[in-house]
């Protein structure tokens, strides 16, 4: 099947900096994309989603950008805090809305 992947397995940033986590997807039929945050020993937690009829969506301190031309998804976290340290997964879904998850990026925030 087609896959979802992440460009960087680990991202280290300083507290207060902005973070950008990237994700490439290969299924052109996918029309729903989700970012999850997973803290150690816990289940993934929904952060933000975007549908293919949009190219940008903003939440509280987070922004998701979707570039359908190059099949690229990114998560931007503003003013990164130590509590943002976690593994971040992107997921894509098509008509069945059963998401396929990427490998994950570990975000490490240094105080």
């Amino acid at each position, binding site marked *: 099947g087609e896959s979802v992947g992440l460009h960087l397995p680990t991202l280290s940033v300083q507290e207060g900096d902005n973070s950008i986590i990237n994700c490439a997807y290969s299924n052109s039929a996918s029309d729903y994309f*989700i970012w999850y945050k997973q803290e150690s*020993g816990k289940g993934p937690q929904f952060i933000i989603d975007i549908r293919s009829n949009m190219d940008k969506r903003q939440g509280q301190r987070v922004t998701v950008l979707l570039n359908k031309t190059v099949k690229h998804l990114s998560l931007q976290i503003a003013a990164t805090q130590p509590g943002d340290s976690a593994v971040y997964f992107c997921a894509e879904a098509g008509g069945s*809305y059963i998401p396929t998850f990427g490998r994950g990026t570990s975000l490490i925030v240094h105080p």
Partner: protein
Amino acid sequence: SQTIHQWPATLVQPVGSPLSLECTVEGTSNPNLYWYRQAAGRGLQLLFYSVGIGQISSEVPQNLSASRPQDRQFILSSKKLLLSDSGFYLCAWSQQGESLHFGNGTRLTVT
């Protein structure tokens, strides 16, 4: 509000023993239900999903089975555990076309 409960949180079982992990959802009706497995440092692998009572779809051939005896109850089972069944098992629910909501997982160690 909706909640999802998974238990137990951790489990150590000998090879060849049976397994039963339970997941229940509250506050929603006719949810889609999912079982995922996550190996250490890896992404989420979909094992089973269900769109209704008694309806189970298996994504990968394996030593595990799933059942949905009630609308908001999803059970993951095995008759005889293998060492390779060790991992972090996550239950999730969603409404059609919406994001998944995960439980806090069960850490299974097969010895």
